[in-house]
C-alpha cells in the first residue's frame, strides 16, 4: 500500500474525525464508565491490573466459570511470540450495531477485532509497510528480538460514546491509528521510532503515546519515546541499561510521569547512566522532549547488574491515604514501595520500604524472580493490596500468614500496604498455590485471576549454556500448557481453575478482564475467553452478596 496516496485520500477525513474525538485517558474511563473496559495493558495508565467495574465475576460466581469460546487466529508466530494481551471496549459503534470488541494483537503486524460474545473475527488489519525487514526477518538476537509488533496497543476513547481509536506501533516503527469498529487505518502511518526495535505496551496520557524499548533489538538504543498527538512531535530519553522491559509498559502517575524499571547496566547517575534502577520520565510541556524527573537505584544495584537481576517489571501506581505510592520489583525478587513525590528519597537510593527476598534464592537470571508486571487493588474495607507473580520456588525464609501449599514452580504473593506510625510497609498476606511460571495477575471484584504460563523459561542449559536460548525450538518443545486460576483475593485460596481447557502455553499472552469474561491467549494462536455463561444471573447473585 502506498501511504503517500492514502494520506491524500484520508487527510481531510482523518482530520475531521480526530477533531471530533477526545482521547480521554484509560484510567479515567475505567473508573467512570460502565460497562467495564480494558483499554490499555494492565487495565489503566497506572498499570494496576485492577478491573474496578466488574460486577459479574465474584468470589461467589467464579466457580461457574467455563470456556465460553476460543478462536484460532491466523497470525504467524515469531520466535516464542504470537498474540499479545487483548484490549476490550464495550458498546463499540459498528455498522452491525453496538458490540463489545476484543482487540487482539498478533506479533506479525496483525490486529484483530473479535466479537466478545462469540469470538467471531469482525475484522483483521495487517500493517503494510514500505520498510523491508532484514533478511531472516529477525532483529539479530533470536527469542528476545522476535520482530513484528511487540507492544500491546492502547485504545483511546472518542468524545462520542462508542467511538474508539486504536494506537499501535508497527514493526516498521510507525504509529498506526485505527478505527476500532472497522479496523481501518484512519490516518497514514506516522514516523515514531526506529524500525525493528522492541517497544513495550503503549500508554496514553494527556494526548500523548508513551512507550519504552529494550533489548537493543535491531541495533536500536533502548529509549523512552513520547508521541505527542497534537504536535506530531516525538520526545525521547535514553538510553538506559539493557533496556526498559516491563512487559506491561510504563506506568504513569497523576503528574504525568512515566515510570519504568531499567535492565542490566551500571548505576551511575552522576554520569547519566541508569542501569538496574527505576526512572521517571515526563514530557516537557513546551518542547515535548522526554525529561528525566526522578530516579531510584537499589543500594545493591551493582549486584543486580552482576547477576543479571534486571529491574524489568512494570511499576504499579496507586493512592493510599492521600499519598500516591508506587511498587516495583525485578528478577532479584524484592518488592520496592515508593512515594511518587520522590521515589528514591534524597539520595535516590532509599525507597519507602523494601521487602525481603520472597523467591529466587538461587539467584538465577531466568526461570526465577518477578517477571512482567505487578498488580494492586483496594478492598471494601480500604485495605490496599499489592500482588506479585514470581517464578520458581518461594524463598525458604519468606513466609506469609496464609500459604496455599508448597510452591515449586511459581506463585502469586499478596502484600498489604500498611502505615505503621508513618512508616509505610508491605506486609506479606498470602501466597497462592503452585503455578507453573506464574504470570501477572489481574483483579476483578474480589477475585484474582492468575495463570501459570506453562512456558519453558530457561535460557541456559548445563551442557550448552546460553545456546539453549539461541533457538526457540528448544524452549518451545519443552513448554507445556497454561492453566488459568481464580483466587480469593483476601486469602489466595483457589476458587476455580481452567483444568486442561487450554491446550498450549503462553508467552506474553497476558490476562484481560471485563464484563464477566477473562481473556488469555496461547502460542498456538488461540484466543481463549473464559467466563460465566449466564452473566446476568451471576451478577444478581453477586450484587446480593455485596461483592465489589
Amino acid at each position, binding site marked *: 500500500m502506498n501511504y503517500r496516496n492514502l494520506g491524500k485520500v484520508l487527510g481531510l477525513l482523518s482530520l475531521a474525525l480526530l477533531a471530533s474525538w477526545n482521547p480521554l485517558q484509560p484510567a479515567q474511563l475505567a473508573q467512570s464508565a460502565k460497562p467495564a473496559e480494558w483499554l490499555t495493558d494492565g487495565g489503566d495508565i497506572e498499570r494496576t491490573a485492577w478491573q474496578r467495574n466488574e460486577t459479574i465475576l465474584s468470589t461467589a460466581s467464579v466457580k461457574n466459570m467455563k470456556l465460553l469460546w476460543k478462536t484460532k487466529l491466523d497470525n504467524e508466530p515469531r520466535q516464542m511470540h504470537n498474540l499479545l494481551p487483548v484490549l476490550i471496549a464495550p458498546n463499540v459503534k459498528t455498522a452491525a450495531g453496538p458490540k463489545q470488541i476484543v482487540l487482539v494483537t498478533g506479533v506479525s503486524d496483525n490486529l484483530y477485532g473479535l466479537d466478545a460474545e462469540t469470538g467471531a473475527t469482525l475484522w483483521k488489519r495487517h500493517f503494510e509497510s514500505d520498510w523491508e525487514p532484514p533478511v531472516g526477518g529477525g532483529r539479530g538476537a533470536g527469542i528476545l528480538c522476535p520482530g513484528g509488533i511487540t507492544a500491546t496497543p492502547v485504545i483511546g476513547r472518542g468524545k462520542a460514546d462508542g467511538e474508539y481509536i486504536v494506537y499501535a506501533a508497527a514493526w516498521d516503527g510507525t504509529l498506526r491509528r485505527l478505527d476500532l469498529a472497522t479496523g481501518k487505518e484512519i490516518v497514514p502511518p506516522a514516523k515514531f*521510532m526506529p524500525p525493528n526495535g522492541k517497544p513495550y505496551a503503549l500508554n496514553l496520557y494527556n494526548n500523548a503515546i508513551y512507550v519504552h524499548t529494550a533489548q537493543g533489538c535491531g541495533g536500536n538504543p533502548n529509549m523512552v519515546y513520547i508521541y505527542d498527538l497534537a504536535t506530531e512531535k516525538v520526545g525521547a530519553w535514553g538510553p538506559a541499561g539493557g533496556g526498559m522491559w516491563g512487559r506491561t509498559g510504563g506506568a504513569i502517575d497523576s503528574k504525568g510521569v512515566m515510570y519504568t524499571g531499567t535492565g542490566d547496566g551500571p548505576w551511575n547517575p552522576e554520569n547519566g547512566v541508569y542501569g538496574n534502577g527505576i526512572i521517571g520520565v515526563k514530557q516537557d510541556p513546551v518542547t515535548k522532549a522526554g525529561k528525566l524527573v526522578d530516579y531510584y537505584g537499589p543500594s545493591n544495584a551493582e549486584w543486580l547488574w*552482576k547477576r543479571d537481576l534486571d529491574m524489568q517489571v512494570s511499576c504499579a501506581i496507586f493512592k493510599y491515604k492521600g499519598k500516591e505510592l508506587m511498587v516495583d520489583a525485578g528478577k532479584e525478587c524484592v518488592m520496592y514501595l515508593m512515594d511518587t513525590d520522590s521515589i528514591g528519597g534524597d539520595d535516590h537510593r532509599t525507597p519507602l520500604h523494601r521487602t525481603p527476598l520472597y523467591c529466587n534464592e538461587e539467584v*538465577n537470571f531466568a526461570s526465577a524472580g518477578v517477571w512482567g508486571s505487578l498488580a494492586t487493588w483496594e478492598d471494601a474495607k480500604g485495605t490496599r493490596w499489592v500482588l506479585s507473580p514470581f517464578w520458581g520456588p518461594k524463598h525458604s525464609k519468606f513466609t506469609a500468614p496464609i500459604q496455599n501449599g508448597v510452591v515449586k514452580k511459581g506463585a502469586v504473593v499478596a502484600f498489604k500496604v500498611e502505615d505503621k506510625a508513618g512508616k509505610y510497609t508491605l506486609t506479606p498476606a498470602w501466597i497462592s498455590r503452585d503455578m507453573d511460571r506464574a504470570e501477572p495477575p489481574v483483579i476483578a471484584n474480589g477475585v484474582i485471576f492468575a495463570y501459570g504460563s506453562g512456558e519453558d523459561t530457561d535460557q541456559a542449559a548445563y551442557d550448552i549454556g*546460553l545456546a539453549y536460548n539461541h533457538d526457540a525450538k528448544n524452549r518451545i518443545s519443552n513448554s507445556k500448557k497454561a492453566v488459568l486460576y481464580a483466587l480469593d483475593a483476601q486469602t489466595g485460596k483457589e476458587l476455580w481453575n481452567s483444568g486442561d481447557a487450554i491446550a498450549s502455553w503462553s508467552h506474553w499472552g497476558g490476562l484481560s478482564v471485563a464484563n464477566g469474561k477473562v481473556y488469555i491467549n496461547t502460542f498456538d494462536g488461540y484466543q481463549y475467553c473464559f467466563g460465566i455463561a449466564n452473566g446476568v444471573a451471576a451478577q444478581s447473585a453477586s450484587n446480593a452478596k455485596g461483592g465489589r
Partner: protein
Amino acid sequence: MKKMLTVFLVCLAPAIVAQAQSRDWYTDSADAQRSAWIRQDGKINKDSTAKPGNFQFLWKMKLKNQPKQLNNLTPPATLDRLIGYRGFRMLGFVAGSGDNLFTIDTDLGRMEWEKHLNAAPSQKASTLLCPGGMTTGVVRPVLTTIAPAPTNPLSAGRNTPAKSGVGESGQGAVTLANVRPNPPRAQQAPPAANPMLVQQGRVNTANLPGGQLGAGPFLIYALASDGMLHSMHLSNGADYQPPVKFLPPGANAVGLIALDQVVYAVTTNGCGGAANGVWKIDLATKEVKTWKGNVAGSAGMAFGADSTLYVTTGSGGDKPNSLVALDPATLAEKASFSASQEFTSSPVVFSHKSKVLVAAATKDGSIHVFDGASLSAPLTSSSGGIKDFAPGALSSWQDFSGTRWILAAHNGALPAGFTAAGGAVTKGAVLAWRLGDDGKLAPAWASRDLVSPLAPTIINGVVFATSSGAFGSADGKATAAMRAARSGKAVIYALDGTTGKELWNSGTTITSFATAGALSGGMSQIYLTTYDGTIYAFGFPMEH
C-alpha cells in the same frame, strides 16, 4: 536480557577472548604463559587497594578434603562470568588432594557443586616428594594467544549517558536519524557463523578455550590420583566424556593445562613409576605422548603464542640444566639452551617489543631472558649471587607505560642490588626486576620481609605477595607433620607493582599456612588456600 549481551559479545569474539584471557585464572600461574598476571581489573588498583577499609576479607570456606602430606587445596581456577542454567555465576574451581573437586560461587562464598572423583586407591606409600592424591589443580581450557598488555584502565560497558531529545514535527524520534538502511537483500551475506565456534583446524567445535560463550560444552579438567583425566561440564560437574587414561597412577603431576583439544602435564620426582617429563594427551584420539626430562619449577611448562612449549630442567635426566622448546604436537625438541647449572623455575613467556621472550631462573639467582624464537643464548641475564635460589615459578607483567617486570619469590636475605621497600629482610621477599630499554634486566625493588613467600600474583598493577608461613627445611627427614607443626600463618600483602611499597595486608585473618602456588584471583577478588583445607577470599564488599 543477557541474551542480548551475549549476541553483542559474540560479535566481538576475538576481543572478548583476549580480554577473557586476561581476567580469568585458567591454570597454574593464570595462563598458558605462566605469567601469574591478571591484566586488568575493574576495582583492584593501587589507590583502591591502599584505601583503608576498602579491600578486605570477604569470606572463607572450610572444604571437606583429606590432605596428602603438605598438599590440601589448589588455588582455584576462576571463571568471571558463567551464564549458566542456575544463573550468572562467578566461580572458583578448587582441587582437593583427596580427589575432590569444589566449585564455589565466589561472589557469595557458597558451594555451587562438589564432586569426588572415584579414583582407584593407590598401593604406594605417600611421601613428601610423592604425596599421591590430586597434585595439580582444576583447569579451564586456555588459548596460547598472548593477550596484549593494556594501556589504559578497564572501563565498564553500557556507559552511554542518557539524553533528552525531541524530533521535528512529523519526523519521529531523534533516534531515527541513526537508523542505517538494511543492506540490499541480494548482497546481504547469510548470517555469520558464530566466530566463537568456528576455528580453522579445530577437531571439535565444542569446548572453546578462553570463555564460555557460544554453544558449548564448557568444560573443566581435573587429573585424579589414579592418572585418569576427567573432563566435566563446569556448570555442574557432570562428566562430558568418560575419564581417560593419561598418567600412571600416583604420578606427581604439576602444571596441568588444557589447550584446544590437548591437555598437558609435567611429572616430577619419579612418583608412581612415571617417567619425569612432559605428558600430552590428544582429547580427540586419546593418544598420549611423552618427552622425558627432569622438569624444573612448580608451574610446569609455558607456551609461546605459536603454542611452542617451553620447559626448564634441573640436574640429571636426559636433558639436564636446560631450557627446551618442544613442538606442541609431537613433543619433539625444536631448540634448547644448556646452562651451567640447573634451572629452578618454570619458564614464563611474554611479549616484549614485538618479540616473544622466555625467562627462567637458575640456581645461582640469575634470571635469564631468551628470544623465544632462538634459545641459543640469553638476551640478558641478571646478576646472580643468590645461593640455592629456587623460586619455583616466575611472574611477569607490563605496566601502562610499557615497562616489563619479572618477579620471583626468594627465601633468605636480600641479594646484592635489591633494596627492601619495607624494613629489613631476613626470611624472604618478593624480588622484582625491570627489563630496561637497553634490554638489560636490573633489580628494581624487593618487598618487605616474608616467610617462605609464594610466587607473586599481579592484578592490574598490584602485586599480591604471600608470606606463606610454611616451615622451610632442606632436611629430608622432616615429615609433613613436623613441618606443619613448625609452620606459622599466612599473610597476604598487596604491593605497589612498580615500587614494592605495601598497600594492604590481610593481618591475622588467615589461621594456617599455605603451600600451594601463586594465589589466584581476578574480577576484583583474590583467593588463597591453606594447609588446613580453607579457602579465603579477599576483595571489595558488595551488597547482595
